[in-house]
């Protein structure tokens, strides 16, 4: 409902400084994480695989943020304006992922069979795929993704910030104009980065659904993460009265909806491969039915879908901060597990082997990610103060 009831937002109350603490905490976690993972496993395949899982986990949150910002812009959404800055700050970390990519580049021979000349020599399939799966092109593609993501993230972030001061309506129009192009770039880059960095770990295997699968996880991740960031802002005394139960209710609905979407995509992919029963496809799931990987897969089916589905269904769950936080933490954990399950069987085909290196890599990448969010946030307001639709967002109610 868009009654433009005047609701005053006191800028002093919603300064990004509230997030400043994240810089310190994140920095410490990063240093500890990098130190621990290098000390524990530096240069080993375990190090690179753990890094890759952690990297894709946080990257997917940031990419989800980019998607959320693009959709809010293109759909002229009113309700989401008051929490958009928080999402923008997550999106704005995307350039940092170019730096965090360095270990993956260093470990490409350990990670990817197609990057090992002796494996390529053995396999006619890999030789056939070499025009796409070769180190140079793979690297060029990565550069293209980072350019696209950084350009989009910087554009939307700076434009939005500029509007804080000017309140210029044309900025909203400009963002809406660029967003459709951004969505196309997002769709292509997200798809191909998931093919390049995850699917090609098992270079013989292929699925046309893979990009959509990665996307569905990324969207769950951002909605969960936004819930947590808003709660964190509350503890710092910010965003109260601006991002309200109404907005969180909507984010909860989106989390609920995309939880179903993830299940739909995951099930469709599994089901079609199971039913078709063609060995060159089933190999992917066969590998994930060995040892404890089987249990991890079952845990995903129940934990990433069934449990949160029933948990988030009641209206009350989506309007309670505490319950939403539980759902968000749980879904982020499940999303991490989903990526772990997609990647790690390549390194540990016999059984799941979670360990301290995973934790260290998580802390390293996550620390940098949090520090970047803290740094970006602390330089501006936590609410898009100049957005002409802010009054609409502030008076928004789920009836």
């Amino acid at each position, binding site marked *: 409902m868009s009654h433009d009831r005047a609701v005053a937002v006191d800028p002093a109350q919603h300064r990004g400084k509230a997030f400043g603490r994240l810089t310190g905490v994140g920095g410490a976690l990063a240093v500890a994480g990098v130190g621990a993972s290098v000390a524990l496993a530096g240069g080993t395949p375990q190090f690179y695989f753990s890094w890759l899982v952690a990297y894709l986990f946080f990257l997917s949150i940031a990419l989800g943020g980019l998607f959320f910002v693009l959709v809010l812009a293109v759909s002229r959404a009113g309700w989401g304006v008051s929490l958009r800055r928080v999402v923008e700050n997550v999106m704005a970390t995307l350039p940092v992922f170019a730096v965090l990519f360095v270990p993956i580049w260093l470990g490409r021979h350990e990670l990817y069979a197609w990057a090992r000349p002796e494996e390529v020599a053995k396999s006619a399939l890999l030789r056939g795929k070499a025009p796409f799966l070769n180190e140079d092109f793979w690297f060029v593609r990565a550069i293209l993704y980072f350019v696209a993501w950084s350009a989009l993230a910087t554009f939307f972030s700076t434009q939005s910030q500029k509007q804080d001061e000017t309140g210029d309506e044309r900025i909203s129009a400009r963002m809406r104009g660029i967003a*459709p192009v951004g969505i196309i770039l997002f769709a292509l880059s997200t798809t191909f980065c998931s093919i390049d960095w995850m699917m090609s770990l098992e270079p013989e295997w292929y699925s046309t659904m893979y990009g*959509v699968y990665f996307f569905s996880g990324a969207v769950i991740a951002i909605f969960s993460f936004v819930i947590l960031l808003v709660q964190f802002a509350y503890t710092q005394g910010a965003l109260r009265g601006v991002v309200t139960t109404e907005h969180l209710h909507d984010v909860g609905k989106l989390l609920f909806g995309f939880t179903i979407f993830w299940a*739909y995509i995951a099930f469709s*992919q599994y089901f079609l491969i199971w039913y078709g029963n063609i060995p060159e496809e089933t190999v992917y799931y066969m590998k994930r039915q060995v040892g404890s990987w089987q249990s991890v897969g079952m845990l995903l089916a129940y934990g990433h879908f069934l449990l949160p589905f029933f948990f988030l269904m009641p209206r009350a769950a989506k309007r309670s901060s505490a319950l939403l936080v539980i759902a968000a933490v749980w879904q982020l954990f499940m999303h991490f597990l989903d990526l772990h399950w997609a990647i790690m069987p390549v390194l540990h085909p016999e059984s799941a082997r979670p360990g301290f290196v995973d934790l260290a890599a998580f802390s390293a990448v996550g620390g940098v990610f949090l520090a970047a969010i803290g740094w970006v946030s602390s330089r501006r307001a936590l609410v898009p103060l100049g957005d002409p639709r802010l009054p609409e967002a502030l008076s928004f109610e789920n009836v």
Partner: protein
Amino acid sequence: MTNVIDNVSHEPVAGRAPLILGAPDFHAITEAVAQPAERATPLAWWLFFLPSLGMLGILGLAVAWLVWEGIGIWGLNQPVGWAFDITNFVFWIGIGHAGTLISAVLFLFRQKWRTSINRAAEAMTIFAVMCALLFPGIHIGRPWVAYWMAPLPNQMGTWPGFRSPLLWDFFAVSTYGTVSALFWYVGLIPDLATLRDRATTRMRRYTYGLFALGWRGSARNWQHYETAYLILAGLATPLVLSVHSIVSMDFAVAQLPGWHTTIFPPYFVAGAIYSGFAMVVTLMVITRKALGLEHILTRFHFDRMARIMLVTGSIVGYAYAMEFFIAWFSQNPYEQFTFVNRAFGPYWWAYWTMITCNVLSPQVFWCKRARTSLAIHFVVSIFVNIGMWFERFVIIVTSLHRDFLPSSWGMFYPTTWDILLLIGSFGLFFTMFCLFVRFLPVVAAAEVKSVLPAADPHHATGQRATPAMAGRLAPEGAH
């Protein structure tokens, strides 16, 4: 009706453009919606209805001859044992999806512009499902035992193949048809009551009254109505995804290159919504003009539909590209051959018709002038209708006609009966739609009233919200 304000040339950034033009009051909406169903049958209606009825006659003839003679009258052969029949089925099921998306998904997303088109789109859904259901019924060779497709108890000694996607189709489509009909009917009740109350003849009052189920428009009525509507929207939303996903599995569970690919479910769903919107646009460009609803179904609404077509058309384009890329990437010679054959084999013209109509033609909608031009809408929507029919034809026939063994390759050529049956299904569809336009309110009047400025309790001038209207304030987003 006068277009006093134009709601497309300037869209405010803060606030929202008016959805209904000319600032009508509640009564004016009632008049505009109810009159077409109350006035004497105009000549123009017959000009649409009689040709449609003629085409329906063709359907009767084609089905009768099919039952008498058998499916040998079609162009089916080895290796193409499935062609127009299943193409038409998938095409029509797809058409229906726009109605469900508009009525259920856009409802959950609080897209108020849906109120002007949801009624007609839902009606279209039901008619499209009717057309679709025809084809599985007649393509089985012995239509008099079509009920064997249902999972009947097995006292007949038959037991349905639960592992067959054709059986899942039966569940999926019949559920879809049922929920769509319920949703449409529940939404109709308040408007049927309006027609009942305005009736000038006993016959009309009785007939509309019968289906209005004793609706009185009390606050209690509205409260129950809102709850029912929201629950049905919630139930219909997964159906938007599930029905065409199951239809896609008719193909995707097979091991045939070109059919077996994991992206099929969401790709088919996007294609279905896309084709459905094209059909809504085709129908509504004519209907709004014929019934004088230009101020209710404005160019703003078409602008929004164009955007959805651009999005879904792009998703379909993404899927085409992804299939091609992965076919190459797989390095599986059969996969690669199928896709090269699609684009450059004997059916190249069908493939490029599909690409031109589905991927290229909607690109004009990047331009705002195209999104708000009804002429361009009409042309593009016809293109998309054609393209989406060809998409199914391409998937089905090109994958079958050259399979693993070159010695078994063949070509499919439709016979006259194939074509007559396709034309006839359009006859059924248009006949039903003409009847709908003639006898029922084409716009959900009660819902449109809820998006008028006067429905806002903070609205300053004049008209006070009635209890009924107070009920109507809640819906968008109540869940």
